[in-house]
């Protein structure tokens, strides 16, 4: 085999498990660090919810060692609340969802699903994981610097974020926050260059682009999104960093001064940061949902025992979401002082992006239609992904409509929307992916019973937690306020009741993750050994052993068709691996499959 990427499996445990260049090990590293940060981010969310339900009531235990202000009687200082949601969002977006979806699933699945022995650049791959660590370090260190961590929101709008006099968190914490994000950005960039190159160059014989599983397609398109959008965020973060440290004037207007601070020369524009930030961060939303769509497509097709409905239209829809995703960023800025004519333009493009999303939902339902649905934990989570993504997608239309957005902008409606997409969407997809590929990753099977218990409570309490955010949102509940009762219209008993209900559900949602954690770690050490293809699925990763050997495949597989040939008439089994040719009597529809 002339494959340049075959190298002997390292014997030294340090290079084998820690500084490994094996894509599977790196994937597991991403998965574990992502899940650990998931717990941290989740705990921050619990404290946020506590404060919203019972404003200023001291949090048991935590209030003593998280903020030591005996003068306030254990009350949470309002700036601490700002830090909480800033760090919650930052951690969840940049250190949980993106690393798990692209880092863990991308690394593990891309080479296995296209039949490659490893990534195109294994060392670069290792670098893309380890560059996350300075990011982790900066993020955690920011909790201990003077002024505490950043409190300018995950959007970090200047001048709040650039002027050290504007907020305690902008003293030093914001610099650490920027450095952490830059590290995460470099990780994503190197990762995405690696993924694209791997997908383009290292496909197994016969693996045409239109024979790749949807997961690979989605990760490929995600990588393209990141490669083209992320550098713009990098430039914005760099400019903000220079504004903070070198005294440049990009984001402060003429003679700006905050609080008691001195006036700066200025001349820049705060809006510019928002433009550059959202030029990346809107595509970032798709970075967080597209891989989920890919995972859901594969899981749903496998457990419906039926070909994916409209494989090629699904790919086109993915590409359309990504392409349109670059020209819709302005819908985050309708009320920002942006030129209203520009707002009208962005409204049209934003409305249009709902279209490919709708097509995908219809296709998923079409895939299940007429199938033989097997209710595994993975399938349940994937179906929840579809169900919740419908809500997340539809609520997006409210914000796309500029006049309606005037009222609901910066309210809990937005918070509800983003959580339906990121929890109802991405997180359910992550769970689906973990249940589905756990046997392949670790060679052991997870417990289905615990998995279903986990799903049941997660699904119920997720709805309970996030549904009412829409309602309090359109009632006018602003986001990012620690105490809604300052306002008369938010002091209404109905609003208070909803806030408390959401908080209780959020705690239950947190507790509902306990079965998952138990299941995960128990199965890791004591789960029953998994067979090579426990789900009787078609794609290439199931043709090799569980867990895959160091080179992934004994011999590089030869691919004959797309991975969705389930229940082919006349077949002995109800699945047909990609390495087996189609029966001669079957011809595929060139437009659909």
């Amino acid at each position, binding site marked *: 085999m002339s494959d340049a990427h075959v190298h002997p499996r390292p014997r030294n445990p340090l290079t084998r498990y820690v500084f490994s260049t094996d894509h599977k090990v790196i994937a597991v590293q991403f998965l574990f660090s992502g899940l650990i940060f998931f717990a941290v981010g989740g705990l921050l969310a619990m404290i946020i919810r506590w404060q919203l339900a019972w404003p200023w009531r001291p949090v048991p235990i935590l209030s003593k060692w998280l903020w030591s202000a005996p003068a306030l009687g254990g009350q949470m200082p309002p700036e601490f609340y700002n830090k909480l949601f800033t760090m919650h969002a930052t951690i969840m977006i940049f250190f949980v969802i993106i690393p798990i979806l692209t880092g863990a699933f991308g690394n593990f699945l891309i080479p296995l699903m296209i039949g490659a022995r490893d990534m195109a650049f294994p060392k670069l791959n290792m670098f893309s994981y380890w560059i996350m660590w300075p990011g982790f370090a900066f993020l955690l260190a920011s909790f201990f610097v003077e002024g505490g961590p950043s409190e300018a929101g995950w959007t970090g709008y200047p001048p709040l974020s650039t002027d050290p006099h504007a907020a305690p968190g902008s003293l030093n914490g914001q610099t650490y926050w920027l450095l952490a994000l830059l590290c995460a950005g470099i990780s994503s960039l190197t990762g995405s260059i690696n993924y694209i190159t791997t997908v*383009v160059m290292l496909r197994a014989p016969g693996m045409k682009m239109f024979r790749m599983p949807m997961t690979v397609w989605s990760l490929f398109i995600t990588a393209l999104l990141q490669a*083209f959008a992320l550098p*713009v965020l990098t430039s914005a973060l760099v400019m903000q960093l220079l504004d903070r440290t070198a005294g440049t004037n990009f984001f402060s207007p*003429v*003679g700006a001064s905050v609080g008691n601070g001195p006036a700066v020369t200025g001349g820049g*524009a705060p*809006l*510019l940061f928002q*433009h550059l930030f959202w*030029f990346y961060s809107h595509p970032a939303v798709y970075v967080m949902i597209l891989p989920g769509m890919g995972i859901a497509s594969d899981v749903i097709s496998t457990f419906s025992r039926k070909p994916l409905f409209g494989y090629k239209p699904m790919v086109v829809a993915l590409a359309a979401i990504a392409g349109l995703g*670059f*020209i819709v960023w*302005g819908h985050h800025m309708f009320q920002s002082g*942006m*030129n209203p*004519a*520009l707002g009208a333009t962005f409204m049209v493009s934003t409305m249009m992006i709902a279209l490919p999303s709708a097509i995908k939902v219809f296709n998923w339902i079409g895939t299940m239609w007429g199938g033989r649905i097997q209710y595994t934990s993975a399938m349940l989570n994937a179906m929840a992904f579809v169900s919740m993504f419908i809500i997340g997608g539809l609520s997006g239309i409210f914000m796309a409509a500029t006049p309606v957005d005037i009222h609901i902008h910066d309210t809990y409606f937005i918070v509800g929307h983003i959580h339906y997409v990121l929890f109802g969407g991405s997180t359910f997809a992550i769970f689906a992916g973990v249940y589905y590929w756990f046997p392949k990753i670790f060679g052991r099977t997870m417990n289905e019973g615990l998995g279903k218990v986990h799903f049941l409570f997660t699904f119920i309490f997720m709805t309970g937690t996030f549904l009412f955010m829409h309602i309090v949102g359109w009632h006018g509940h602003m986001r990012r306020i620690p105490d809604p009762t300052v306002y008369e219209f938010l002091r209404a008993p109905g609003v208070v009741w909803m806030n408390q209900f959401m908080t209780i559900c959020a705690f239950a949602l947190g507790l509902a993750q306990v079965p998952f954690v138990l299941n995960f770690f128990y199965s890791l050490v004591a789960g029953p050994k998994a067979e090579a293809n426990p789900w009787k699925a078609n794609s290439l990763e199931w043709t090799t052993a569980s867990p895959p050997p160091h080179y992934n495949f004994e011999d590089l597989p030869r691919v004959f068709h797309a991975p969705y040939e389930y229940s082919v008439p006349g077949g002995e089994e109800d699945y047909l691996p990609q390495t087996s040719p189609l029966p001669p009597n079957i011809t595929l529809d060139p437009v659909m499959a």
Partner: protein
Amino acid sequence: MTEADASLPIVPATPAQAAAAADVESHAPYLKILFALFLLTVGEYLFARFLKDSPGPLIFGLVLLASAKAALVAWYFMHLKYERFWVFLVIGPALLMAFILTLLLFPDFVMLPDPLGEPVPATSGEAPRPAG
């Protein structure tokens, strides 16, 4: 191939390769391009020197000259001339998005609305903008 014969020129396998190799071998195009770049640089210098007070033609001409220079470097030195279509598939979207991003910044930072004040008559002309 061993190190010893590596220094020998490769025998082109096909006429197309032979033509391409000949293209690469001769240094004349590179030196010609360098000379063209030199002329363009001098041109830019002179252009900027003598048209410094008329911003319209200055910007138009300089952008044209600079684009020509950049295109020459990319086309010949970066071998875009010899590259396959896929390279344009990578660079094209990046340039397109760079263009879209810059273009969509214009309404907010360049086409500034008229200053606010008391209801101004429609023909405000060269009214000075208020400060601060």
